[in-house]
């Protein structure tokens, strides 16, 4: 589903490389976890996958279902099934969450040549998804992310993800800001979306998320490179020992 080959990238107009040769293959149906110290380039990688133009790819390629993803505009990637749950979701004043959801769903449907959703159909979907994630009707009427608590923002991200039904889900520190109950609810929401047709990349610092969302593969990203890949036991090891062993090899 996703193939990243020798990806080098920097902030546009700046010299320092942030990604320094990332290689990563994620197959359909798999869940990969990416861990790594602060500033190692995890969010940068997720932004580049989503098409943020403040980063410049200097070398390498990214294939999404065999297609060159780097040539697609962000909204084309979204319509093709790429979803990013942001580490820091953005506020959109005056736009009710409900309205945002409808606009996004219909924009993607239109781009794929599908009919727009009827209002009753849309409402049915939203209500069902919101109930699973413990998101209240009241919250859906509020402007998106404006005044939402940290946990509410993360739940709103996963709500969008479940309604947009993407093929590739990239979750950037979705666990940060969640209380214990919310972590369970959100993880259940994510697990519901696990399917043989879908792939996920879960960026996190903590094992506790991976207790709920059990990954098939775990990677360590350090200084812009993947320095270690293993199974779920790697996350447990990191939890215990920290990154010290791997940071050196990346230098």
């Amino acid at each position, binding site marked *: 589903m996703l193939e990243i080959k020798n990806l080098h990238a920097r902030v546009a107009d700046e010299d320092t490389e942030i990604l320094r040769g990332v290689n990563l293959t994620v197959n359909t149906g798999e869940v990969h976890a990416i861990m790594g110290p602060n500033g190692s380039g995890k969010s940068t990688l997720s932004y580049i996958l989503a*098409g943020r133009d403040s980063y410049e790819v200097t070398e390498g390629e990214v294939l999404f279902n065999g297609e060159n993803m780097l040539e697609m505009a962000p909204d084309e990637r979204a319509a093709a099934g790429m979803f990013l749950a942001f580490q820091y979701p953005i506020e959109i004043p005056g736009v009710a969450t409900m309205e945002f959801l409808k606009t996004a769903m219909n924009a993607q449907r239109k781009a794929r040549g599908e009919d727009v959703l009827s209002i009753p159909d849309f409402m049915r979907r939203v209500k069902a998804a919101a109930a699973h994630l413990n998101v209240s009707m009241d919250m859906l009427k509020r402007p998106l992310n404006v005044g939402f608590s940290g946990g509410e923002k993360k739940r709103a991200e996963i709500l969008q993800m479940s309604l947009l039904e993407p093929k590739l889900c990239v979750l950037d520190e979705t666990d940060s800001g969640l209380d214990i109950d919310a972590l369970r609810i959100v993880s259940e929401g994510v697990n519901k979306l696990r399917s043989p047709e879908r792939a996920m990349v879960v960026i996190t610092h903590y094992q506790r998320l991976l207790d709920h969302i059990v990954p098939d593969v775990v990677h360590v990203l350090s200084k812009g490179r993947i320095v270690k890949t293993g199974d779920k036991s790697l996350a447990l090891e990191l939890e215990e020992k920290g990154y010290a062993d791997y940071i050196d090899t990346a230098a």
Partner: protein
Amino acid sequence: MPAVQETIDKVKAIDVDQYKYGFVTDIESEKGAKGLSEETVRFLSAKKNEPEWMTEWRLDALRRFQQMEEPEWARVSYPKIDFDDLYYWAAPKSVEGPKSLDEVDPELLATYEKLGIPLSEQEILAGVEPKNRVAVDAVFDSVSVVTTFKEELKKAGVIFCSISEALREYPDLVRKYLGSVVPVTDNFYATLNSAVFSDGSFVYIPEGVRCPMELSTYFRINEQNTGQFERTLIIAEKGSYVSYLEGCTAPQRDENQLHAAVVELVALDDAEIKYSTVQNWFPGDKNGKGGIYNFVTKRGDCRGKNSKISWTQVETGSAITWKYPSCILRGENSRGEFYSIAVSNGYQQVDSGTKMIHLGKNTSSRIISKGISAGRSQNTYRGLVSAHRKASNARNFTQCDSLLVGQDCGAHTVPYIESKNASAQFEHEATTSKISDDQMFYCQQRGLSDEEAVALIVNGFVKDVIQQLPMEFAVEAQKLISISLEGSVG
């Protein structure tokens, strides 16, 4: 990333003027002589079979106009207008006077249909509940071509007709109120309008009557080199209520055209007038060529106690907008409101705002202004809130928000506050923001195109004002704002 750049280039290539109303109606029309003179005024007045006093009133205005200087305080710039190079009268030949619907030239009916204006008494605006019927006065160049639902309104005692007809049928009413809110010499453009106004609407709501339907006037400029000078007068007697909406469009032409209207509202005790405008005159093309010069004087007089006047405007068109719908809060406990969305793109220049003049006790006012500037446009909010000596407990709340789209546009806020009464309480809040890259990227990541993202963010920004519009126009207004901003990103 080449793909992204390509999208940006594509978006940039789209003309600013996605103006959907730029067509010309091919219809035989009659014009008066070019130029501004006593003869022009007499010709106009005679065309309309006006009473003698009206002709004199116009001539008096003309003499005063000839001694006035064009004002220069607004933040707009344009070449001097040659008033002698304009036509002051143009009318479709087929129109002799307001007719019933089945007598109207089919070409004209087709024009309004194309503009989405329901000139029929059975049909309704697309997507609108049948119960929300709208009576329309359609003004084409200098004349009113038809007014719908007139008979039905008459049964409720409501008079809704063209001002020309009112001058003939209800001269005493017109004479009593015309110029009582905007005096003949109020300002340069109002004086010009007083001399040469051609048509417009007249509304009279009798005591205690709640107008049974939405009233609206639709202004269309079609002819070349013709100024449009319309005059609207609305009188709400004690305890009455009316909601009125005006819309405007003009063909796309290379030369600038002048539009100088005067609107007067009078609300007596306990009466309420809700006046909404969707202004979409041709804004000029992407290089700033052509477009309407819109110099408008709109003022409401809350003459009676507990009266209320609210102005709601969505301004997307015109090359230049110079417009300050105001309220004179004379009656005790009276209330004035101003809700405005002013969108400017391309080379448009907007200098707009309001005046809330608190004269009576316990008067209150509220101003919510949302300015959106894109392209190379300049967008200024200019507002005055004043309390006179007797206006104890006057209250005002003003909120002025500006949103900038892109790097080359400007937003300016010029609030004037004058209080001669120590008990007056005036509050003013202002913000200026930009659509951030973060917001754009977030929306795009969810599948919205550049333009959809801008439209969504802008609609969020203007929501407080959109909510003030009559329901049936809110959706239209939102669409209009999106269209006006097309081509503004990249």
